[in-house]
């Protein structure tokens, strides 16, 4: 009977996670549009519902009623599989993210590794979609996405390794538990005695690489609409495009959750006398997501070579030095 209860719990979490991802995708589009509008001194969507709050529903209905067009010359199977391939790793990553103290679908010992393992798959989704659609713009976008992904995965993993050395665990729940007891215990600052003083640098590198890995501006080379029409998504219509979009936003939510868990104390409260709860987690996560939107509408897109140079010539050396110094610090203290 216990097995059945565990199964039901997992199923409930799975349904919840998919609903959470879909709801976030829908409403992050609204946040994105409203945010963009206000950064540019416009109003943004306002016709459908109060403050345009029903706009995502209208968009969804529009996308779902459109024909799922499969153009001639594409690889029909890969063309259809690609959007799902982008969405599935994000949903898998949510399985191990601890939203609250007891609110995680599965408490995996290698949680951090699991998220990185699945995150490394989602570039294949973009690649297969772009390549399968046999479109020049899409193939250029695929080439860019791959070189960008290879370049930025290295500093991301190097900083993650440094962080794992400092925390001594890959279990996300445990990493969060270590950060209890107020703002100054968070990995972002970590004023406790045996901690590495380098985590703010790690945070900056991690945040930058997160932006690049989720293909967000100023690193949105996959969908550089001023150069490549819509990049990898050029040939997609209707809900095919919609699922791609959901995948993109789900990946942003995963990235922001990861930053929250690793550096901002997850569900721990900022002050020691307040109880930790899922509310803190969501507040921190949405603050990160809002920053991501803010950056997108503040900075112009970088040039492609500047993007690669930033990773190979700046971020990778810094994260290597960070790794070595963290190891030294941990050995000495």
């Amino acid at each position, binding site marked *: 009977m216990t097995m059945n209860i565990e199964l039901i719990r997992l199923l409930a979490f799975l349904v919840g996670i998919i609903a959470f991802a879909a709801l976030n995708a829908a409403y992050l589009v609204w946040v994105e549009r409203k945010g963009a509008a206000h950064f540019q001194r416009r109003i943004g969507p306002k016709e459908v519902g109060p403050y345009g709050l029903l706009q995502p529903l209208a968009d969804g209905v529009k996308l779902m009623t459109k024909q799922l067009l499969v153009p001639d010359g594409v690889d029909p199977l890969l063309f259809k599989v690609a959007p799902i391939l982008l969405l599935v790793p994000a949903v898998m990553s949510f399985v191990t993210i601890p939203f609250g103290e007891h609110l995680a679908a599965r408490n995996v010992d290698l949680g951090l590794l699991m998220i990185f393992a699945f995150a490394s*798959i989602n570039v294949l989704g973009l690649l297969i979609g772009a390549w399968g659609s046999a479109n020049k713009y899409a193939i250029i976008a695929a080439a860019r996405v791959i070189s960008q992904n290879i370049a930025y*995965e290295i500093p991301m993993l190097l900083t993650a390794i440094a962080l794992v050395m400092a925390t001594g665990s890959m279990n996300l729940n445990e990493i969060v538990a270590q950060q209890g007891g107020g703002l100054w215990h968070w990995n972002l600052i970590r004023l406790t005695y045996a901690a590495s003083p380098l985590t703010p640098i790690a945070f900056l590198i991690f945040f930058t690489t997160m932006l690049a890995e989720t293909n967000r501006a100023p690193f949105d080379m996959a969908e550089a609409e001023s150069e490549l029409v819509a990049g990898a998504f050029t040939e997609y219509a209707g809900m095919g495009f919609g699922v791609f979009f959901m995948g993109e936003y789900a990946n942003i939510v995963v990235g922001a959750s990861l930053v929250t868990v690793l550096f901002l104390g997850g569900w721990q409260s900022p002050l020691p006398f307040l109880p930790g709860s899922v509310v803190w987690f969501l507040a921190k996560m949405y603050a990160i997501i809002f920053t991501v939107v803010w950056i997108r509408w503040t900075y112009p897109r970088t040039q492609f070579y500047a993007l690669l140079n930033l990773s190979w010539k700046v971020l990778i050396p810094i994260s290597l030095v960070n790794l070595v110094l963290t190891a030294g610090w941990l050995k000495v203290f």
Partner: protein
Amino acid sequence: MKPTLLSPDGLSGLIFLALVAVTVAGALVAVAAQRLVRGIAGLSLCFIGVAGLYYFLNSPFVAMMELLIYVGAVCVAIAFAIMLAEPRSEDKVGKTSGLGAVFGVIVGGLAFLGLALAGRHTHWAGAPSKLNSGSITEVGKALLTSYSLVFELISVVLLVAIIGALVLAQSGRDK
């Protein structure tokens, strides 16, 4: 007693068979595909199946590394290399000649036979001496103590690869 389909043993057997089927199907797609992009998709499917087998065999660390390295890095690097080398990537790969196919089948069969024989005749360590707590601490300790020679040899292979890449890049630049 023969395990029924819905007992834990039966279900785990079913999962094992499904994973093997995914691996074999991916491998078949990878070798038989006419388009390169399908080949890469098949190869990554095969790797995902292998990762699933590792997870099934109770070593989650190896399974995750399989996903991270083989799907996330090797497949993507292969795609990258093909894109650099072959600008008209939508072209189909030419058909191989009949002789080549026969030769390939023979070599593949011999490799399979050799591995199967090696597998049959190796004295496998029993369960207690396996490094199978799956924890990274155990794996790390084992790599740096009892298996340090293997570890060092792998780094030599990587060094050779890096030097080779540098040599190739250098001669390309002089042209």
